[in-house]
């Protein structure tokens, strides 16, 4: 068995072991509250179904539909259609000709806060717990701007323009890029993360529902976000490169660059913004020199993110 197979097998064993461990931990919690589930449909639903059966049939196929239409777990879900749409009595009395009292989710039909409140009644925990006060909330985004609620997967995220790249679809990314046009352009640059290939998505780094950190990042800091995939740069090292420990964005731009390695500017000039020690770092280096072509300064200073070699003070080893 060669190295790769061996390592693959080890990795597989670890995943299997941990999966079993997690299942064992969770198993005792499984029956909790299970008896409370009642397979009953909210009575009010039947009035709605009289006119809206087609929508209800589609909605029932969703997980949310299954819960609110037939298997409620709590009082809100027991309200059925009304749990989201509010009091429909005026609507019913008007024979469906008036939407008074109803919460609808068409853009502009209701204030965004009213529409979102209907969602937050249930979705106030987990990834949505920091919604209030978040960038997207204060910018007036409605949940329905991104989510299609009453259709089964994979349509729950709205896709303004479904673009295919020979069989590949990036629905989640397309939703974000619908507004973030600058990022759409940056992702097409020569140096990029595999977002346009569909291997990394916006939510790999960001939580659009809100966080307490900057730029809706999932992690506390920019660096912690980068270390998710680049843990080898985390250190601590014997010899640190100080700005590296503070912020990866001092040198890199994450959404795309025309310079290699997502750098904000061309090396060696990027390095020379901060380094002008006597000798070659201070020289105006010609393009046709080994200080400028290929990898620039890191032709020699390879350990630019930090070195753990006792003779690595200059990040050469």
């Amino acid at each position, binding site marked *: 068995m060669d190295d*790769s197979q061996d390592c693959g097998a080890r990795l597989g064993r670890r995943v299997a072991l941990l999966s079993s461990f997690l299942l064992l931990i969770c198993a005792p919690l499984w029956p909790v509250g299970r008896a409370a589930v009642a397979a009953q449909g909210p009575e009010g639903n039947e009035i709605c179904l009289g006119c809206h059966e087609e929508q209800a049939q589609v909605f029932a196929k969703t997980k949310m539909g299954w819960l609110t239409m037939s298997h409620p777990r709590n009082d809100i879900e027991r309200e059925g259609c009304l749990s989201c749409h509010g009091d429909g009595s005026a609507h019913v009395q008007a024979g469906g000709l008036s939407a008074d009292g109803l919460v609808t989710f068409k853009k502009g039909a209701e204030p965004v806060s009213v529409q979102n409140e209907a969602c937050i009644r249930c979705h106030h925990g987990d990834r949505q717990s920091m919604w209030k006060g978040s960038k997207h909330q204060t910018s007036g985004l409605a949940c329905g701007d991104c989510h299609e609620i009453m259709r089964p997967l994979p349509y729950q995220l709205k896709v303004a323009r479904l673009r*295919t790249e020979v069989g590949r679809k990036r629905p989640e990314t397309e939703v974000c890029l619908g507004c973030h046009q600058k990022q759409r352009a940056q992702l097409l640059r020569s140096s990029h993360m595999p977002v346009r290939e569909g291997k990394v998505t916006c939510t790999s780094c960001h939580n659009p529902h809100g966080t307490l950190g900057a730029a809706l990042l999932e992690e506390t800091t920019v660096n912690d976000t980068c270390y998710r995939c680049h843990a080898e740069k985390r*250190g601590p090292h014997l010899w640190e490169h100080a700005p590296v420990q503070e912020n990866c964005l001092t040198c890199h731009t994450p959404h795309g660059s025309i310079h290699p390695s997502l750098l904000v500017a061309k090396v060696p000039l990027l390095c020379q913004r901060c380094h002008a020690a006597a000798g070659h770092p201070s020289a105006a280096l010609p393009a046709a020199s080994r200080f400028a072509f290929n990898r620039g300064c890191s032709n020699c200073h390879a350990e630019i993110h930090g070195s753990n070699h006792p003779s690595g003070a200059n990040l050469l080893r």
Partner: protein
Amino acid sequence: MSEKRKDATIQDKAAGAILIALLAAGFPPSVGQAQSDEAAARSLGPFEIHGSVEVGGIPQAVDSSSSKFEEYRDLPGRWPVLPGLEVRGSERERGYYFEVSAEDATEQDGRYVVRAGEIGRLAIEAGWDQIPHKSSNSARTLYRRRGDDLFLDDEIRQTVSADNALLPTVLELARGHGLRLREDTGWMNVRLTPRTFLTFRANYRAERQRGTKAIGTASAFSAGAHTLELPAPFEYVTHTVGASAEYATRSLSLRAVYGGSVFRNPYAALEWDNPLALEDAPNDFSTGRLAREPDNQAHEFRLEGRAAAPLSAVMAGSFSYGFRSQNDDLLPLTSNTALFDPPLSPLAADKLDGWVDIINASYRITAEPVENVTLAGRARYYDFGDRSRRLAIDDPVIGDSLAAGDPRRDSRFSYSKESLGGGVVWRPVRQLRGGIDYDWVRWHRENREIKNSDENTVRTSLDTEPLDWLSLGAAYTHAIRDPGSYEAKVVERSFTEGPSIEGATFALLRKYDLAHRERDAVSVSLRASPWQRLAAGAAFELGADDYDRSVYGLLDDDTLSYSFDLTFAPSQRATVFANYTREEYRYNQRSRFRPLENAGDVQRVVENTANDWHVRGHDSVDTVGVGGTLSVVPGKVDADLAYNFSFGIGRLKGGSAPGGDLSGEAEDYPNVKNRLHQVTLTLVCKLREDVEARLGYAFERYTESDFATDEIAPSMTAVDPGSALSAFLGARAPGYTAHIGSVSLKYEF
């Protein structure tokens, strides 16, 4: 048989078997037919089964072997391939479900996910994802791999070490060595919701990156540094675990979270033969040694919550403590035995005992004390305390070749950051919203040029919706970062006896991440949808960073971007769209060539303003996208066409003070250009209610011109005679033109 080829063969067989099975069966009855006969409904025990399978091929023609074509993807140019497979099972009575899906299962960039659970109660997800990353297909090297290390054939080594001048000639014998990696990630997530207000989560993720990457090294300092670029094998494995418990109601939520990450690198060091020296010598080494990224781990414990308060206020806060540690064995000072006489002072410790404490506390409050007025407040404290051992190195060696002569002690760069801010948003009428925000940030740093710095930021914004279909927004930000006094020579503190060259540090230079900065930013955006079939938008952003007290270093950098986008549906059957974005980045930086001269027994720096030089950079990128969708035959044939174009130019113009040394004369660099054209056309024909044929065509043309790599080759003597004793990999990722087709049949059940 290579590993990749073997995998591909197995995957081919699987895809082929599915295709043959489908064709042999002539496809089972369609859903429509099946619905007419309830007995034919697909079920597996209590589960109702649905899903789809897509089988096809990807014929292609590519005019180059550029790694750029498959930088992060695998387009095998063969068939059958299995772009998609999905099986979903649901049990409607109890809400049990499962989903099995595979994307691109026959390729190196496949993704496989299994989900199972009980609706509203339990969700389990396990998956496997593969990302190939090809950096270059053109790299060539004289080195071979032996375990963790790289060695040269004896004949080559003896020839070159006997006559170093033969290196450029011998480099012509360099063999191809692809620079690529594959990232494999396996994960398992469990979410349990025993009550609607109680959620437990547990997750585990294992990621392995394995392959070969380029590493630059330097040698032979006494005769002028030479570069040896090496194809270094690497394998990074990161295990990430997490667990959380959350109690959440509308008015209150509390969450306890643990996250841990363990990084393992089996390669502690990289050793390589030096082609220029067969034996160790005081000014050169026979075998070089470099430390690889050390094993490390990070753990975090976090408590966070949210609570409703009077005046429609919501408070949210988070407190976390985390630590990072690293304790790999330190390598010896050098691999060069010729530097052992007299013996080098031993290291005071054989490990760093690396330890960083991280504390973070964040708080945010949002309130609506009166109708249409929202107040917000926020505060944050972040402390990065590097408690690692400070280790004095008495006899460091530069590049395994030269005793540095300057004893050094590592600097630990601890820092903390405090911020406080708040704002008010007033909406006097529904169509108008104005806001003002203020933030103050203070940094405290250890062992950096700036100890304390303050940044004050004011941001104002105005958003209006004068008409139901029109919204306009504008914002202006002004920020001043005041770092106080700048101690340029702080770096010299790491020299335990002071640096041997006095004044080596340029005292007038200001590092841009620390320097005094005045920042202005303006943004304007517009969205309009005058009627339901038309949506248009425009955005404009201007940013100006002025390092107004810097005389050397980065002096200013400005960004400009504007974009337009339009979507129009001329009929219910067709949609067209277009977008354009222009981004510009301009900057000025200034420096001074500071040569060394011998003054008796010591070297000293020559300061001469005639050696001042500056560079003006100007990067611009234009991006265009146009396309549309058309329902050619409603419900039967759909078409999707898109064209994207990205054109980036990087310009660098140099200038110098009159007179001065040659090395102080900055020249213009050749422009860097890269262009990407991308056309995709997809046609989906519904052959039956449950069978569709998908035809796709993509055209891609990528061109690149970059002085850094255009002429790169193992020997660069022709470009830079000074690199006659250097060896590079010649790694390029040049342009390509590709025509890619896709033909597939998708069957839904």
